[in-house]
């Protein structure tokens, strides 16, 4: 199975910050097939288009997935109304995830805001080899720090206003780390300016960097060509699709 569509039971629901929810979903076949960096495509009652949400946790033994999402508009508000015990309609797992290489000695995971959730499965995969840098607007938007710590990863927390952790953007602690050297790979998800900044640093230092992109989607599986993204492959421009070729891309492929 590559992906499948079905209705799955929500086994846990938590509000983990203002308008941010965590769902644990029982979906054994999907959990079995899922990799870090992939996403699920969720149907919102009353809406034509599904909503793409990154996978934030994969428990193959329990057969569960975890997702963490923020209410950004009507569709996510509708999904947030679902409760523990309700069925959630997902097309999953979708997309091309992160490259996880067990030979890497040190990796940096950088999440900005609601881009933090997809970093968690990587933290679990790399454990103590990972440094997880997370950035948020302010203290009240901070999520998942305990989860990152419990994977054994080193963590660094930044806020734009200094109300929690370091008063800086994620690029500052990352630059410091990068200066020290020894980083095998950088993985990032978050707002475009952040991703651009990180990609530039990695390019300069010659560090392998993968980023997870967002685009408006219809099918979610590569059929409709809705989620185009300009990339470069073998020096030729290539219109890739975020849902199938991504959401994870090698940073150097992306034409910003």
């Amino acid at each position, binding site marked *: 199975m590559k992906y499948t569509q079905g209705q799955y039971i929500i086994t846990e629901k938590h509000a983990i910050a203002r308008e941010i929810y965590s769902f644990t979903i029982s979906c054994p076949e999907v959990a079995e097939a899922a990799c870090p960096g992939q996403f699920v495509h969720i149907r919102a009652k009353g809406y034509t288009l599904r909503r793409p949400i990154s996978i934030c946790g994969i428990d193959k033994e329990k057969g569960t997935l975890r997702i963490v999402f923020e209410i950004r508009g009507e569709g996510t508000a509708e999904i947030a109304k679902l409760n523990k015990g309700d069925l959630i309609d997902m097309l999953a797992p979708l997309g091309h995830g992160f490259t996880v290489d067990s030979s890497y000695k040190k990796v940096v995971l950088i999440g900005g805001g609601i881009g933090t959730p997809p970093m968690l499965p990587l933290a679990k995969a790399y454990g103590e080899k990972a440094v997880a840098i997370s950035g948020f607007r302010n203290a009240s938007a901070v999520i998942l720090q305990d989860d990152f710590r419990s994977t054994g990863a080193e963590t660094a927390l930044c806020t734009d206003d200094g109300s929690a952790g370091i008063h800086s953007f994620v690029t500052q602690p990352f630059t410091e780390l990068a200066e020290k050297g020894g980083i095998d790979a950088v993985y990032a998800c978050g707002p475009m300016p952040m991703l651009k900044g990180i990609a530039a640093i990695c390019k300069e230092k010659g560090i392998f960097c993968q980023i997870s992109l967002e685009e408006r989607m*219809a099918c979610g599986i590569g059929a409709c060509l809705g989620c185009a993204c300009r990339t470069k492959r073998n020096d030729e421009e290539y219109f890739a699709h975020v849902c199938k070729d991504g959401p994870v891309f090698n940073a150097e492929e992306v034409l910003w």
Partner: protein
Amino acid sequence: MADLSVRVCGTDFKNPIIPASGVFGYGREYEELFPLEKLGGIATKGTTLHLRTGNLAPRIAETPSGMLNSVGLQNPGIDHFISTELPYLLTKDLVVLANIAGATPEECAEVAAKLEDTDVHMIELNISCPNVKQGGAAFGTSCEMAAEVTRKVRAATTKPLVVKLSPNVTSITDIAKSVEAAGADAVSLINTLLGMRIDINTGRPILRNNVGGMSGPAVFPIAVRMVWQVANAVNIPVIGMGGVSSGRDAIELMMAGASAVQVGAAIFTDPYAPVRIAEEMNDWLDSKGIKSVKDIIGTVKPW
């Protein structure tokens, strides 16, 4: 089990349900979910003479009971289609409608000519795209342009030729009659309605292309009206589409005059939509004791 088979331009479909062009690619992605054999046919992604990269993103916006797209005919070109996609599709037991487009009547004809030596079952000519020779107005918005492109493609192919009409016109029956006279074997309708959405927080159109094509359940009543009008105006079969999302919708469009039904945006909501719709049609026909879906085509009794 009702008999769901239909026949359009001499081609047999095991059931009247066909994923619409552009929503289903060349079928590979959905084959992960169900065997393509469950479909009556497939209308492939609009294909042009050469590879096209399409428009910049965002290309998708949501609307009440519908959506906008501005994919801009991204496709790998007809040669790639013939060498790589078509042979695969032809191994499946379904009718393949090659949806084609071009920037000039000549380009459309050239694309059709390339298909002549293949085993593709039908050609669906999309005339909603801009005619570069005529200042960029869509072929499908004037009887003359629609007739000209139909004539040129007709001359280039012996395959059954379905001309796909644009709903963004004052009189779709006039266009339908023109393409019929110009040699179309059937018409399909409706393509998308031109729409726009603006992100009020940025003051920018949501689509990078500013405007895009609207489809989905919202447009269904317009599709029913146009299918009904066109079916009453021409003597060639009509393939209906526009907002179909249930077996009841498909029945309604066939009562209005459609001989087969394409399913577009509904697939994004429910990827199994085409299969489910065929099953729902069967259930409804059985519940009414109607033996064959052919018996409902064009049966609406106007007041």
